[in-house]
């Protein structure tokens, strides 16, 4: 892992160009605050893998948190106001977050929420796509989906007019944690 301040600056710069909103937060309770703030009065969806591994987040969200129903993961959280997911890597070269997801419920949160918060630890920042390729190959066999997400969903299909938010989330918040 590259962890120089140059990589972080580059990551923030590139992510901002891709229209992600970048936050540097110290702990999961700050993430919960951000999520609740963005959700207004609505619920916050959290990926099952994150809610299992991160009690600080779930307890801070309290009863405002919702999780996909494993029997019907997509419909149960379709169009949640805010979704919180954890990224495996952040890539300075492109300002992207790599999501590594095996559980369809995790995918539901990252693909269907209107506002997405992607959280990545500061020590998970890599400088280049080459390192991402190495990481994906090293995790081969245990990984059915790896997605590099770079900014919110967008289209320019009508008269080349760039419009943010089509099928995927229309607001993307990148949280660098720690």
């Amino acid at each position: 892992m590259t962890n120089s301040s140059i990589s972080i600056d580059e990551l923030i710069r590139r992510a901002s160009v891709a229209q992600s909103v970048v936050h540097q937060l110290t702990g999961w309770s700050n993430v919960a605050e951000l999520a609740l703030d963005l959700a207004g009065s609505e619920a916050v969806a959290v990926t099952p893998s994150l809610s299992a591994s991160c009690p600080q987040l779930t307890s801070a969200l309290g009863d405002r948190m919702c999780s996909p129903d494993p029997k019907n993961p997509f419909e149960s959280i379709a169009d949640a106001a805010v979704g919180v997911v954890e990224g495996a890597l952040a890539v300075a070269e492109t300002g992207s977050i790599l999501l590594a997801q095996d559980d369809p419920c995790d995918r539901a949160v990252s693909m269907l929420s209107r506002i997405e918060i992607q959280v990545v630890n500061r020590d998970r920042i890599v400088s280049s796509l080459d390192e991402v390729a190495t990481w994906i190959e090293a995790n081969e066999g245990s990984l059915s989906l790896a997605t590099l997400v770079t900014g919110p969903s967008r289209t320019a299909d009508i008269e080349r007019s760039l419009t943010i938010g089509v099928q995927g989330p229309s607001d993307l918040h990148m949280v660098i944690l720690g």
Partner: protein
Amino acid sequence: MSIPGPFADRYRAALDNETLSQNLLEFQRSWRETRDKQITDLEEIVQTDADQLRHELAVMKDHVIEELSEHVKQFRVAAEATGAIVFEAGTAAEANDYIARLCTERGAETVVKGKSMVTEELFLNEYLESFDIKVLETDLGEWLLQLDNDRPSHVVMPAIHRRRQEVARILEHELGVPFDDDDIPAMVKSARTALREDFLSAGVGITGANALIASTGTTLLVTNEGNGELSASLPEIHVVVAGIEKIVPTTADAMKQVRLLARSATGQPISTYTSFFTGPVPGHEMHIVLVDNGRLAMAEQDWSSSALRCVKCGACANVCPAYQVVGGHAFGHVYTGPIGLVNTAFHHEIEAAAGPQSLCLSCGACETVCPVEIPLPEQILGVRRLVAQEVGIPRWRRLTMRLYTSRRLVALGTRLAAVATLPFRSKSFTKIPFISRRFASWRSIPAFPLTPARSRSTLRSSGDAIAHTKATGRRVTLFMQCVSDRLAPEVVLASVDLLRAAGCEVDIPSDQHCCGLPAIDSGDDENGRRMARQTLEVLAGTDDVVTPSPSCALAMFHDYERLFADEPVWQQRARELRDRVHDLTGYLTGPARLPDGTLARGDTRPVAIDHFCQSSNVLGRESILDDLIRSLTGADVVPLAEAEVCCGFGGSTSLAATELSAGVLKRKLDNVDASGAQVLLTDNPGCLLHLRGGADAASINVDVLHFAEYLAARLPGR
């Protein structure tokens, strides 16, 4: 969507669509700027020259193509190990049958689709619909086109030919609510709402793939909207349909492609979603349909195999001047743009590839931006030859070319034309009141000189050397070029004067004729060889050969050797000639470079310099002519926007597709007009007559000259 109609209808419809060319012009200009910026950015990121990156990607793809069947096997084994089910489809019918059977067996009533060119190639939607399966395109552009029973006109920007007002009406019709013509965000949002239910209820999701990774059995998919990821993730069955040429060896190789793909496609450093799917998630099924449909045949032929490197970025269309005028429905078939002129011949009937061939101007721009270095201009000529063999060249065209191979007939014909049009002479033009508007309204016809250059007495009188150059004392054979000789003799005279001024001895063989390029360009190799042989005989035993026409020089450089692939003796002569041929620009900026200050100054008119497209795109020349003119004459050379973009002459194209030629010319003349120049210089005689006639017809007040004329007029004593 429907199967494309006859080419003539599509061409006519494109010309009738007034906003199409304007949309595409703006698009091409902004794409060029953002793409170039992103490519420079990439060079800084990876500290490697972009041409090197393009080359590495090409080499990697070639390695796969050379052993395509082996790589298919390798991918298949790896993908099956992940739990995916792999089906190899030899033909479109096999692929369609497999997918339709899967849908019906699993009881899927609705299928959601991510954008996929290969399924367009298969006409999969129509096939599935014949089983009463509802097929929904989910890429915004594709969805809009599907709602209006239209087809994509660009590989990456499918609906670029549609205006927002049309989109608003389509949505109103579909959704039953009014849309403001200017509220594009509302239109986009409506797609999200309308498609969300279908995503959730669909039984099958079909996507394409941008790459298939052989070592891991992974499929790579890139989108900006997220629709591909939803189509892949939400339904319980994910079907990936991909051409076998999409295979890359490793994830690292796929990343190399990712770096160039979005930059070449949309001018982004990376698309919003770059997804690697490796096998199904628990409880889901993943099927991978590997499509051949002509690809193995394409891989087996040397001339066409490299077209399989294509990563479907659409960059070739984004710089194609002809595409800008008529768009993808005319310029291509299912696959549009320059690459469509090539691969259509393999994935569909040869007749489908035949029509649009006349639209390529052979300017070579496509090859310069291709991220995998596909030699598109050469391959387009290959398809033209294939069309000539299998569909045939129109009889009038072949006959015209056959007649043109005779120097005597051409001499007689131009002489007769000169006499017949004498009453209609108006300065340098022929103004015949009753001639077809299609041919003359946009480009004035040049005056036919009564005496061709070869018969001018001044050609024989010796001009004086004015300075010592590296070429002083050299014996130069001038290949006049047929067009200059008969329609622009002043170009020949000026060339001779300049060469003599540089101290050369100039020979002008009187039995020279045409290099054969017009025939070669139309796929008529038989007549091309006739003229090439004549030219090789005339130029046998000469030293330096110089021509004021770079397009003839390029034919001798690039086409002659291939023309005589089966005739080793002639091929050897072609190789020997290649090493001795120079175009005048190259010669005057090289060995025969006159010292600065040897030409008279005084003409203060601002000068714009058109960069002959093939010199820029094929020889990689940038501004050598600008530098020469500036330093020899001190002229005020003003910047000309899109100087390297083709002027629309394109040899026989300007006769076969006149409206197209006129459209491309207009772009050039608008740029010339905006430059403020009063003099326009070019170094290719065909372009010269085309630009001069166009400027006259458009009443643009600019003096269009061959650069040799401009320079020769400043020789001492003139």
